């Protein structure tokens, strides 16, 4: 009885699905789906290679410091970094004194209140403060940016596929639109063509546009490619500040587990030795 009911139900589901399949196939043949234009022009991120890649990869401290400078002098004008505090820059190799100076000299001050009147005001940042946002709120951010909201960059490299390479490719990927790009996909006013951006047209003006835009303290030549690479590495750190601890602990853990597994295997073989001896040989 239950099997008859089962066969009936199974036949029902199967028939409806095959019916849907046939209907779908007919539609597919009658009107083949058109691939969105974005598909043919969109590019996958380039891979410039970063020191922190791979299981032994560590952040390049010099690169992170250069990247911070690019963020501070270029990106931070529009993009917030809500999840990172100045004290975290210790990871980049800065001393306490240097961090205090960076915090004090940050272009945007930390929101505060006037201690006498209670009115909203700002004060220079301390090492314990989170990095202050360049705008008071999203409305102000949109108003200043042609109604586009510059996203927070703290997690950017984890919030996109192949994020670090994506950020690098996006920053270096501004070009003129290809000549065969249909009119409706061409950038409108206030938009810029970038083949790495999902819909090809991004509201962010090319942020890195001239060599030497940032003057590096360590004498590295600040080419656009170099600045893009450095700030991408910096954003990889802001998204995953514990990466080095994760990898080094991971290597120890895997090493321990390999030893443990070998020992477990030998004790298993040892305990089973008398039983395995009885096993037939074929």
């Amino acid at each position, binding site marked *: 009885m*239950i*099997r008859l009911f*089962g*066969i009936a*139900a*199974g*036949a029902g*589901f*199967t028939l*409806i*699905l*095959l*019916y*849907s*399949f046939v*209907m*779908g*196939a007919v539609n*597919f043949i009658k009107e083949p*789906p058109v691939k969105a234009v974005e598909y043919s022009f969109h590019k996958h991120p380039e891979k410039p290679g970063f020191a922190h890649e791979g*299981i032994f990869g560590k952040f390049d401290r010099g690169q992170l410091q250069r990247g911070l400078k690019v963020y501070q002098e270029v990106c931070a004008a529009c993009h917030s970094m*809500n*999840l990172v505090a100045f004290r*975290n820059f210790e990871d980049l190799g800065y001393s306490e004194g240097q961090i205090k100076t960076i915090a004090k000299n940050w272009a945007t001050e930390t929101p505060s209140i006037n201690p006498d009147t209670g009115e909203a005001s700002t004060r220079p940042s301390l090492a314990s403060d989170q990095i202050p946002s360049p705008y008071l709120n999203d409305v102000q951010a949109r108003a200043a940016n042609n109604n586009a909201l510059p*996203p927070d960059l*703290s*997690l950017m490299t*984890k*919030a*996109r*596929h192949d*994020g670090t390479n994506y950020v690098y490719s996006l920053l270096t990927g501004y070009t003129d639109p290809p000549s065969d790009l249909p009119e409706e996909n061409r950038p409108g006013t206030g938009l810029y063509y970038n083949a790495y951006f*999902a819909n090809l047209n991004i509201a962010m003006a090319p942020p890195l546009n001239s060599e030497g835009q940032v003057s590096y303290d360590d004498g590295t030549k600040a080419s656009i490619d170099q600045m893009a690479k450095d700030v991408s590495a910096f954003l990889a750190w802001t*998204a995953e*500040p*514990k990466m080095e*601890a*994760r*990898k080094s*602990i*991971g*290597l120890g*853990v*895997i090493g321990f*587990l*390999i030893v*443990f*597994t070998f020992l*477990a*295997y030998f*004790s*298993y073989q040892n*305990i*089973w030795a008398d*039983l395995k001896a*009885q*096993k*037939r040989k*074929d």
Partner: protein
Amino acid sequence: MSFPWANQYQPENEFMKWMDSRLPLPRLIYNAIGAGYPVPRNLNYFWNFGVLAGVALVIQILTGVILAMHYAANVGVAFDSVEHIMRNVNSGWLLRYAHMNGASFFFIVVYIHIFRGLFYSSYKAPREMVWLLGLVIFLLMMATAFMGYVLPWGQMSFWGAKVITGLFSAIPLVGPALQEWLLGGFSPDNATLNRFFSLHFVLPFVIFGVIILHIWALHIPGSSNPTGIEIKGQQDTIPFHPYYTAKDGFGLGIFLIFFCILTFFMPNFLGHPDNYIPANELSTPAHIVPEWYFWPFYAILRAFTFDFLFIPAKLLGVIAMFGSILLLFFLPWLDKSPVRSGHYRPIFRKFFWFGLIPCILLLGYLGGAPAEEPYVMLSQLASAYYFAHFLIILPIISMTEKPKPLPNSITEAVTGKPLESAA
């Protein structure tokens, strides 16, 4: 019940004797997973996965309880509180990544455990109750995992919650009201997040309870084995401890190596980047996909694209998706073959390896793919096979197939010599 030759618990010292006569908990453990539980001697590595699933649950509960000490279930701060765990809590990144990937590994081992049961027909009499309780655990796991994915309140959390609770709105008459009741509002919001957190915390303990029932029900007939024939004498069995504890120790090592490679070196490999974007109900992600372990069911849901006899496609999809799991509850009665093990069922075996397994893998791939052609057409064919396999092919071959001859005993299957003393 146990076998008459099972080892008897002997308290080792005066304290254990005192304990045994007052609260025989050590005796219970000895009989459940110690030397007092006789197990077939021929279990292969597929029998490791029950223990591994238990370990995975323990990992989830331990990491989860500590995460809950730092997490804040409020839509205003939930996302930032997860990042606070990742950045400021000591070893918080490890707890969170272990919990994230632990969920995936829990599903990996449970899927292998379930397919072990399907191939060796472990669901057949007298173990129907073990199978049914296992499916209850599976459903509870799915609910728990779904609600856990909502907690970080990222984009996929929010839109996943919206889509999955939206399934209930397909139910005629009561659907929309039911969805509002589940969400505590018209859209996922603070009420939703709070109740999901509460349920996500409590359900694992319910799962733990049902696992105890699952093991209890298993111990009535005892474990099945790769030949599928019953235990006939003492020689067919060995004590669980030390034989299978040693084998499980080795299996656990392999499991932990894979688990730790993902957790430490590619922790976000199984996740979706969109969940690192805070939830925003004004911005819909391009492709809303659930976690990978739901993909086969998600593919079945989306395979229904046309209304049929005035039944809307969405409702058909919802019925089929739930039906694809519910039908497993009927397997013990759909499959009437007297032989359990797939090794001795030539036709069943072919359909299993060349039909069911590729079908499930394909559905898994399609569930993660965008809802476009040709993915949708493929998922229609694969879903059709899924239902046909369990509801039509399996009942029919179980009646018509001629099984291969079975060995006389487990001992004979292993050693080639007959069992000397039949019990």
